[in-house]
C-alpha cells in the first residue's frame, strides 16, 4: 500500500513542479495545491498504513481491541488540510485582486513593486 501511495506522491510532485514552473500565477497556485496534497500524503504514508483496523475502542472498553491504525498522522493531515485550505483561499483571492489591479497574472509582467530601470527595459541599449 505504501508503495502505491509513494508512487502517487511522486506523480503529484512531478505534476506540481511542472505547473509551478509556469509564468501564470493561477497555474502556479494549482501546482502548489497539488504539492500540498503530496505533502499531506507523505505524512499519511510515513505514519505507516494499516488496512482495515479503524482506531476505535469498543463501547465499554478502555483499550482498543487488537491492533489499530495510527490515528496521529490522520490528525496531522487533517490539521494541515485545514490550514492549507485557509492559505489557498487567501491566495486565490489575492490572485483575483492582483488580476483586477495589475491586469495580468503573468509573473513576468508583474513589475510594479520592482520596476525595471531604464537600461533594463526591452529595446534599450544594444540588446534590442
Amino acid at each position: 500500500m505504501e508503495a502505491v501511495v509513494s508512487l502517487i506522491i511522486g506523480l503529484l510532485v512531478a505534476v506540481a513542479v511542472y505547473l509551478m514552473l509556469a509564468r501564470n500565477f493561477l497555474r502556479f497556485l494549482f501546482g502548489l495545491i497539488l504539492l500540498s496534497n503530496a505533502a499531506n500524503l507523505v505524512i499519511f504514508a510515513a505514519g505507516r498504513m494499516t488496512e482495515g483496523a479503524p482506531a476505535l475502542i469498543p463501547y465499554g472498553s478502555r483499550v482498543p481491541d487488537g491492533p489499530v491504525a495510527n490515528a496521529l498522522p490522520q490528525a496531522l493531515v487533517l490539521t494541515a488540510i485545514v490550514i492549507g485550505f485557509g492559505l489557498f483561499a487567501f491566495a486565490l483571492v489575492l490572485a483575483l485582486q492582483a488580476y483586477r489591479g495589475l491586469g495580468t497574472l503573468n509573473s513576468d509582467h508583474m513589475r510594479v513593486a520592482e520596476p525595471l530601470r531604464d537600461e533594463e527595459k526591452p529595446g534599450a541599449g544594444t540588446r534590442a
Partner: protein
Amino acid sequence: MTDWILVAPIAIPFATAVAAFVLRNGPGGRVASLAGGVALLFASAVLMAQVLEHGVIAGQMSNWDAPFGITLVADTLSAVMVVITAITAMATLVYGLGEIRARTERLGYHALFHAMVAGICGAFLTGDIFNLYVWFEVMLIASFGLLVIGGSKAQLDAGIKYVALNLVSTLAFLAGIGMLYGLTGTLNMADLHFAIQEVENQGLVTVVAMLFMVGFGVKAAVFPLFFWLPASYHTPYFSVSAIFAGMLTKVGVYALMRVFTLIFTGDTGFTHEILLWVSALTMLTGVLGAAAQTEFRKILSFHIISQIGYMTLGLALYTTLGLMGGVFYLVHHIIVKANLFLVAGVAQKIAGHNELDRIGGLYKAAPFLAVLFLIPAFSLAGFPPLSGFWAKFVVVKAALELERWFIAFVALLVGLLTIYSMTKIWAAAFWKPHPEGYEPTLSRMSASDRVPMLAPIVVLAVMTMVIGLFPEVFVQLAETAAVQLLDPTDYVTTVLGAAAR
C-alpha cells in the same frame, strides 16, 4: 505551576486580536491593541525573570505528559526572543498611532497585527515540531493580511511573490515533519533529540535535515532562497515593514538554531558545513544587492539578508562562542533593523518620497533625525561602541578560533560594504539638497503624529546604545542561551521529566 506564564505570551495577543477586531470601528480598537501590547511586555518580562531564576521551564498543555501532548518550553533563547518580540511589537504599535489611519484600522489592522505576534511568540515557545508548523502558519497568514492591507498595486504585486515563495517553504517543512515522524514516531522536540540517534538509516535523517534547512531557509531569507524579501518588504506600511524586518526572518533563524542544535546534530560535518557556506554567500549577496539599490527600504531589505548570514554563521560554526554571537546578533539586529525602517518612514513623511534620487535635505530639516538614523546605521555596520560592534566581534572571533580565515574575512568585508550602503543613504537622503526644490521640514508631519512616530525611534536608539555601552549583561545572556543550545540536557530533562533516558 508556572504553566500560565508560558501560555500568556500566546494568549494575550490572541485575546487582544479578538478585542481589537470587535472594537475596530471606534477608537476602542486602538486602545485595546495598545493595552494588549503593554500586557505582552509585562508577561514577557515575567517569563524572562522566571527563566533566569529557574533555568529552562516547561509546561504540558492539558496535562498530557510529554512526549504525547503538546509541550511549551522556554529556555533562555526562547525567553529572550519573546521579550524582544514584545518590545518590537510595542514600538511599531506606538509608531502606528501616527501612521495608521482609522480607515486601515477598520479593515482589522490591529487584529491582524496581534494574531501575527501570537504566531511569533507561539513559534518561540513551542516544544513540538508539528505545533511549530501551526505557529508558522498563524504568523504567515496574518502577515499576508498585513502585507496587502491598503491594497495598492505595489502591495498586490509584492503579495503574490511573498505568498507564493512562503507557501513553498511551508510545504517543504511539512513534508520534512511527515518524514521525521515516519523515522522516529515522535513529534516532541526533546524526545526527537534521542529518537533521532536511534534511527538506523542516518542517511535519510540527513535528507530530512535538508528539507528543514530549505523550509526554514526560505523563512530566514538565506542565499539562494531570499528573493521574496526584497520583492515585498518595501511596499506595506512602515509599521508593518518594521515588525516584518525585525521579527519574521528571525523566526526562521530561531527555528534553524533550534532544530540544528537539538535534533539534527548527527552529521554536523555535512549539514553545518553547508550552513557555513550558505551563510557566507548570504552575507555577500545581501550586501552587494544593497549596493545596487536606490530606494531607502530596498537597501535596508537587502541588509536584512546580509545580516541573517551572520546569525546563521554563528550557528554553522557550532561552538559556544559562535552560537553566543549568533544569539547576540539576533537581539541587536531586531532592534536596529526595526528602528531603521521606522526612520525610513519618518524620512518619507518629511521628504515626500523613498527613492533616494528624489529626496534630500533631511539633515537641514531635522538634524536630530539624522542622529537617530546614524545610531542604528553605524550599529548595523559594526562601529564601536554600538551594539553591532560586539555582535560582529563575537561572531568573527568564533570564526577565527576555528581558523576559518576565509569566512572571517568575508564577515569583515561585508561590514565594510555595509558602511558603503549606509553612507549612500546618508549622502543622498540627509546630506544633499532636495532635488525638486521642495523644502523638507518637520512641519510636514502634523504635531500630533510627531510624538508617536519619533518616540519609538528614540527608545530603540537608546536601547542600541545601552547594549553597546553595557554589553556584559547581554553577552552573559547570550552565553547562557548558547550553552543551553549546545548541551540540551536541561531542556530535555525539563520537558521529559524523570522519564528522560
